[in-house]
């Protein structure tokens, strides 16, 4: 039985057709994956189901009831729940209070905390989740907070649960727990719409997969009747030769970066070197000190001890400006929060780190600025009609390319990539890998932080594993092995 049907949904924005005549049906109790490159139309489709976007054409049918558009209230009342990437939880309230936020169970005029805790415990029990309903949400890890979100949706009688990249912020153990919960949800008759870039989990969890590309539905396939290569082909509309492009041997004997006994910002006594032309991978769990080390190198956090040498010269940057001027660049992890200047153009986003270099008497050389932006638009293939487009109108992958352009423009010797491909589609990923290769082949050095095991193993010449702010292991390429790395990463 179809619990939800989307019929001929079309959504136009000025200048863009986000969805073009898309029809999909969802069966009760199935997990249905939505895949596609960034900008394929997944978000718009989801927003049409939640009432955040009103389609120009088409019908949405929920259990036989037909709507031409929904409102958030209607959508919720008909059993559609969403787990967004950013949670809507209040850290200062308990788990139970969060689950019943705005719908508190009352005894007379007073909130009945015990009844809420009891109800919450019932839901957790049903799905075998061990969370204390009286714990403050702020004390939970990201993985558990996500489970609270799921419980919240279930307490609102959600029968269709949309999950947007649910495993992205999770450690592998947390993801494992999430998968179990998803299986139990399916068994209890909840329909899951699962959006993800991670192929393994799509093949593990879902029954069917719908591929979107450029706002159009390409196909809906049974998961059991397809494989990764075919799926990727459908997504990008072209064949990707290999995920990790070959690169020439280019590691020189010269050391570019020499870090000795670096401490501070949660990092404890770290020493390592990077040679010119080398890609050094940083593996480890979230919070292991990888991003924190990057912040120290980039002058975004204060070191308490140790030395940082670049080309044999002590640099020890106190501000990002110092780091940039000495030849270090950082492509940050959180593109929205720390990278993109959303209201500004591609041109301004490209030039912002070197504006003073291309200015005379405080005045920006606008010709040079345009030339730079055009050059990078061409060379790293930023998909946009014009460099005067605001960056917020680009897809995630293209936004990331603009941020990379910003740092290439600063002519760095060392580029730190922090989770460079998170939330980015397959095609853009491969292009970013090619860029990394081009950098090291040009004699630059790269420090690559990644939580994706395949990526860090595929791209690095050497991997350093961090755990609890310390280096717990170091591997050469010939010794790369997923298990070894995991063991180092989870050492206590």
């Amino acid at each position, binding site marked *: 039985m179809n619990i939800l049907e989307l019929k001929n949904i079309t959504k*136009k924005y*000025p*200048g*863009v057709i986000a969805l073009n005549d898309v029809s999909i049906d969802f069966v009760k109790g199935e997990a249905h994956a939505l895949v596609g490159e960034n900008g394929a139309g997944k978000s718009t489709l989801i927003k049409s189901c939640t009432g955040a976007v009103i389609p120009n054409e088409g019908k949405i049918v929920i259990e036989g009831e037909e709507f031409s558009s929904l409102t958030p209230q209607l959508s919720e009342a008909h059993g559609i729940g969403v787990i967004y990437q950013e949670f809507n939880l209040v850290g200062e309230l308990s788990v139970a209070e969060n689950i019943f936020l705005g719908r508190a169970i009352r005894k007379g005029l007073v909130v009945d905390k015990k009844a809420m805790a009891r109800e919450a415990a019932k839901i957790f029990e049903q799905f075998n989740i061990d969370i204390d309903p009286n714990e403050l949400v702020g004390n939970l890890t990201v993985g558990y907070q996500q489970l609270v979100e799921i419980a919240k949706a279930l307490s609102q009688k959600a029968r269709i649960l949309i999950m947007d990249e649910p495993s992205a912020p999770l450690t592998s153990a947390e993801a494992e727990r999430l998968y179990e919960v998803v299986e139990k949800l399916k068994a209890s008759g909840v329909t899951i719409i699962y959006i993800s870039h991670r192929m393994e989990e799509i093949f593990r969890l879902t029954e069917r997969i719908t591929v979107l590309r450029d706002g159009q539905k390409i196909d809906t396939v049974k998961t059991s009747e397809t494989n990764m290569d075919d799926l990727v082909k459908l997504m990008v509309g072209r064949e990707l030769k290999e995920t990790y492009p070959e690169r020439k041997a280019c590691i020189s004997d010269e050391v570019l970066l020499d870090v000795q006994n670096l401490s501070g910002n949660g990092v404890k006594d770290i020493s390592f070197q990077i040679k010119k032309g080398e890609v050094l991978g940083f593996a480890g769990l979230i919070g292991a000190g990888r991003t924190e080390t990057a912040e120290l190198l*980039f002058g*975004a956090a204060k070191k308490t001890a140790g030395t940082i040498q670049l080309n044999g010269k002590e640099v020890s940057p106190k*501000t*990002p*400006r110092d*780091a*940039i*001027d000495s030849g270090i660049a*950082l492509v*940050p992890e959180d593109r929205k*929060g*720390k*990278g*993109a*200047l*959303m*209201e*500004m153009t591609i041109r*301004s986003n490209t030039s*912002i*780190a070197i*504006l*003073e270099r291309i*200015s005379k008497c*405080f*005045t*920006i050389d*606008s010709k040079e600025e345009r030339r730079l932006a055009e050059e990078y638009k061409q060379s790293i293939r930023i998909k946009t*009609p014009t460099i005067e487009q605001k960056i*917020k109108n680009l897809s995630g992958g293209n936004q990331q390319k603009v941020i990379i352009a*910003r740092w290439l423009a*600063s002519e760095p010797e060392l580029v730190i990539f922090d989770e460079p491909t998170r939330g980015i589609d397959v095609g853009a990923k491969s292009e970013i890998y090619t860029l990394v290769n081009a950098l090291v082949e040009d004699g630059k050095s790269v420090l690559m932080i990644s939580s994706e095991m395949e990526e860090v193993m595929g791209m690095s010449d050497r991997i350093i594993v961090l755990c609890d702010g310390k280096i717990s292991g170091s591997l050469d390429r010939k010794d790369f092995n997923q298990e070894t790395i995991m063991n180092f990463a989870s050492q206590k």
Partner: protein
Amino acid sequence: MGHLENLKGAAKAVNFAKRNGIYIVLLVLIGFFAFATENFLVSHNLMNVARQVSMLGIASVGFAFVLLLGGIDLSVGSVITLVNVVCGWLLVNQGMNPVLAVVLTVIMATLIGFANGWIIANIQMPPLIVTLAMMIIIEGIAFLISKGVPIYGFPESFAVIGQGYIGPIPVPVVIMIVILSIGAFILNKTYFGRYFYALGGNEEAAKLSGIKVKNVKYLVYSLSGFFAGIAGIVILSRTNSATSNVGEGMELEILTACVLGGISVTGGVGRISNIVAGVLILGVLSNGMVLMNVTEFTQMVIKGSVLLIAVAFDCLQHRKTA
């Protein structure tokens, strides 16, 4: 391709209306008063409006910078008052050379702005509170200096700034045009002007792009003080008398002009060219209402409503794009 071109054209038209809609509002308002009153569309009245709004226009430039940064500067009205009182005191009680007196008072205004910026950047206090406290302090100081008694009797040469003409155009209007042009130049052409947008849009990203956030804040609040200082001098010269309540409430008029001109209160968005329209709308409204004999208190109601509506539009627009 043709279809795409059409869509692009439509998008451009929508953008144009969005960006310049405020001028349409201005024209409607002018049309209304032209019909509703006899004397509105007379050239000398229009020149009058321009002169009346010039102080507002001058101070708006600095205030717009602060708004772009995502901040606010409630102290500008009180800075205007203090500039009046101190400059008047230097001229009359100290018999100081007018040029020197003007330079010194504008420097003082700039330093007050710098103090705001320093506190906001280093102690990381909310700009609203810092500048509110500063406003009260400065109003008090102005009163202590003047003891509530107007200062007057300035040298004649000083009157040129506020009362003179260059050809048919009043000097204050010329000063306003120059300063608006400087403001537009800073925002469009200089790297530090670009930094205002970057910081207001995303402070963390700006910092990680190598922008020295503190320096930008010092600069912006100093400029706010500087432009308020110049506005204060123009007012002093025009009224020919320094009183200790001259700048009262001006910060809200300036805020209204900026927001009407499309400077977002949430920072990062806005252009100088539309502030001109914002300033003119307020001027036309004031002047027209006076011509129509609207009482002062009714004017307050209307001006307050304009501020509310302007901010509401701004917020609604941002919610849609968010």
